[in-house]
C-alpha cells in the first residue's frame, strides 16, 4: 500500500446511528483507489487544518470507493465535528494512505471484540473471515443500541454476532470469552482504551500474536527511557542532529530540512515510519507489537526517541 496523497470526493454522507455518519469517498477523476485490506486506515486532512485517521469499513471488491464511519465526539479537537457539521457531499478532502497496522492474519477461528465506533475496522474483517470459512464470533458493545452503527449490516450473520448495550445489559465477560477460545484462535479488538487494556490482561497466556488490537487514542505515555540529549544521524546526508529530551525526533529531522511525511504526531497512524540502521530506539508508539519492538528495524519519530546515545536512521 502506498503512502501517497490524493484528493477524494465525498459522494455520500448519511447518518447511520446517533452521532455516526458514514461517508462514501471516491476519486474525483472516477478512477480506482489504491488497494487495501481489512484493518487499513486512511488519513483525512480536513480543511480546518486537522488530520484524522479513519478505518476503511467498506467493500474492497469495489475498487472505486472507500467507506468510513465517523463518530461525533463531543470532546474531540474538532475533526469529527468538522466532518459532521461542515463536510458536504461534493466536497474534496485530502487523503493520505491507506496504511495498515492491524492486519487480518490466518487463524483457526476469530474472536472479534468491538467497542462503539471500533466496529469499523472489524466489519471488513468479518466479511473476510466468512469468505475464508473460518469460524468467528463478534462481541459488539456500545453505550446504547441507538448509537451503535451497522447493526443492520450484521443482522444476516445470525448468532455469530452478539450485540449488547452497556446501559441496559452491562459489559461482556471478556475473561470468559477468552478462556473459551479454542487453540489456534486469534482475538481482534478495536475500542476504547479500557476495553483493550482489559482484553490484554485476559490474553496474557495466549500465544504470541494471538491478540491484535487497534487503539483510537494513543497509549498513555510512561516517562522516556533517558532524560539526557542524544544524537540522531541521518545516514543518507551524514548529518548528525542533537535532540534535546524535550524535543521530538520528528521535529529535529524537519528542522534539519530532511523530507519526512508525518500525520497524527501521536504514534498512531504510522505515516512517519523510519528505518533504523543502528542504535536502540525508545519505542513510544501505539503501533508496533512487542516482537517488532525488539527487532528495532523501524520506529516512529513523532513520539519515539532513542534509548542509546546515538540512533542512525535511513533518511
Amino acid at each position, binding site marked *: 500500500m502506498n503512502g501517497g496523497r490524493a484528493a477524494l470526493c465525498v459522494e455520500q454522507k448519511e447518518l447511520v446511528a446517533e452521532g455516526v455518519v458514514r461517508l462514501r469517498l471516491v476519486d474525483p477523476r472516477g478512477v480506482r483507489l489504491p488497494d487495501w485490506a481489512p484493518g487499513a486506515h486512511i488519513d483525512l486532512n480536513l480543511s480546518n487544518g486537522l488530520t484524522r485517521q479513519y478505518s476503511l469499513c467498506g467493500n474492497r471488491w469495489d475498487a472505486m470507493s472507500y467507506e468510513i464511519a465517523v463518530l461525533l465526539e463531543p470532546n474531540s479537537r474538532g475533526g469529527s465535528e468538522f466532518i459532521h457539521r461542515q463536510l458536504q457531499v461534493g466536497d474534496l478532502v485530502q487523503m493520505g494512505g491507506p496504511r495498515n497496522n492491524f492486519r487480518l*492474519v*490466518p487463524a483457526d477461528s476469530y474472536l472479534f471484540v468491538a467497542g462503539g465506533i471500533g466496529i469499523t475496522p472489524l466489519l471488513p474483517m468479518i466479511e473476510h473471515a466468512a469468505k475464508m470459512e473460518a469460524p468467528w464470533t463478534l462481541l459488539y458493545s456500545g453505550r446504547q443500541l441507538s448509537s451503535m452503527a451497522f447493526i443492520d449490516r450484521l443482522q444476516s450473520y445470525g448468532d455469530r454476532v452478539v450485540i449488547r448495550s452497556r446501559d441496559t445489559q452491562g459489559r461482556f465477560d471478556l475473561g470468559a470469552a477468552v478462556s473459551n477460545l479454542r487453540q489456534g484462535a486469534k482475538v481482534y479488538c478495536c475500542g476504547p482504551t479500557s476495553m483493550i487494556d482489559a482484553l490484554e490482561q485476559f490474553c496474557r497466556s495466549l500465544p504470541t*500474536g494471538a491478540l491484535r488490537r487497534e487503539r483510537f487514542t494513543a497509549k498513555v505515555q510512561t516517562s522516556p527511557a533517558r532524560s539526557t540529549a542524544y544524537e540522531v544521524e541521518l545516514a543518507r546526508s551524514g548529518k548528525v542532529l542533537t535532540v534535546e529530551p524535550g524535543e521530538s525526533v520528528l521535529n529535529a529531522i524537519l528542522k534539519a530540512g530532511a523530507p519526512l511525511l508525518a500525520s497524527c504526531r501521536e504514534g498512531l497512524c504510522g505515516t512517519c515510519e523510519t*528505518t533504523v540502521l543502528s542504535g536502540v530506539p525508545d519505542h513510544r508508539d501505539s503501533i508496533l507489537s512487542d516482537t517488532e519492538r525488539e527487532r528495532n*528495524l523501524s520506529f516512529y519519530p513523532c513520539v519515539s526517541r532513542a534509548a542509546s546515545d546515538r540512533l542512525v536512521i535511513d533518511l
Partner: protein
Amino acid sequence: MARLSQLVPSSGHEPPILVDDPFSEAVLSSPFEFQHALREAGPVVYLSSHNVYAMGRFEEVRAALVNWQGFESGNGVGLFNPRHETPYRRPPSAILELDPPIHDAPRHALEQALGPRMLTGFRDGWARTAEIMVEELLNREVIDAVADLAEAFPLKVFPEAMGIPEEGRENLLLYSDHNFNSFGPNNALVENGRAAFTKLVGWMGQQGSRESLRPDGLGARIWAKTDEGDLTAAQAAGVIRSLLIAGLDTTVHALGAIIDAFLSAPRQWELLRAEPTRARVAFDEAVRWASPVQTFFRTATRDIGVAGTKIPEGEKILMFLGAANRDPRRWDNPDQFDLNRDPSGHVGFGMGIHRCVGQHVARLEAEVVLHELARRVARIEPSGEPKPHLNNTLRGWKTLPVRLIPA
C-alpha cells in the same frame, strides 16, 4: 506470418481474431512480429489457436493486471481452465494463484521478508561472489554468458540465501523451467519436460520444511512469521517453495537479457561504465526490453468490457507483458535498449497485488553483477550464434557466446 482471420468480421463487441499460435516454436523464438500484430489488431484480441482472449497494448494490460477484482488469478494463471476442464493438473501455488482474501497473508509476509532493507545483509557477500566469478571469466577467451554467468551467479547466491540444503540445488532450474512451461498448452515443450520433472516432484515436496532450512536464511525468516502468528506452517512451507520455483530461472533469463541488451547497444555499455550507478536503471530497462516473463493468464470474474470489447465471465485472457513493454503507444523507440529512458512503470514484473514480490532480490543480484562487470570489462562482444531457450512463459537464451574484453 501473423495473419488476421478473414472469416469473422470484427464488430464493436466481437474481438478481432488472430490465428497464430503464440506458443509455437516460431513465435517463442522470435515473438516481436506476433506481438506487433497482436497490438495492431486491437486492444482485445481472440486467439483462435487456444480459444482465449489476449491483450498486448500497454494501457489495457496494465489496467487488467491491476484490476484483480475483475481479472482473477485464483482460477489459475495458465491456459488450463478448471471451469471448463477437469482435473486440475497442477496444485495451486501458495501465492501466485490465490486471490484476496487468502492471498493477503502470504503476500504481506513475503513483502516484509524480501523488502529492500531486509536484503542489505546479502550485498557484501554477493558482491564478493561476483568479483570472484568475473575474475575467473576474464581468464577465458570465450564464455557462454548463459551457463557461465547468467546461470552460475544466481545458482551460487539464491539457494544459499534461501538457506536450502546444498543437495539437489541444481534441480531448481529444470523444475522451474517445466513449471513455467506448464502455464502454456500441452505442447512438445511440456511433453518433453514431463519425465524429468516428475522425478523431481518428491524432492521439491521436501523443500521448505523448517528443519531443512539454515537458521540465517530467507526461508527461516519466513518461518519466523509463524512464531508471530502471521502465517501458518503450511503457508510458510508453501511460499518458500514458490520462491524457489519463481526466483531462479526468472533471474537467470534477466541476467542473460542484460548481456543481450548491451550486445544490441554497445554505446550503452560506455554509459554504464562512465556511471556505474546506472546499474539499477540498466536492470529495469533490460527487464522492460526483454521481458523474461512474457505472459500470464487471468480469468474474467464477470462479463467485463475492455475498450468496447466484451470478455465473458469465466474466460481466460492472456496478458502479453512482453508486448506491452514494447508498445509504441507507451514507449518511444520501444525496441531500443536505452539507459537514458525512465523504464519505471514497465509491466515486466507485473503490476498490482501480484507484482513480483521477489524483484528486490533479482535487482540486488543484477546490481552487484553489473557493478563488477562495469568495473572490470571494457567491452562485451558477440562470439558466435546465440541459441534461444524456448519456454511457454519465459523468454531467454540457451547459449549466448561472448568475449569479455578486460578494462
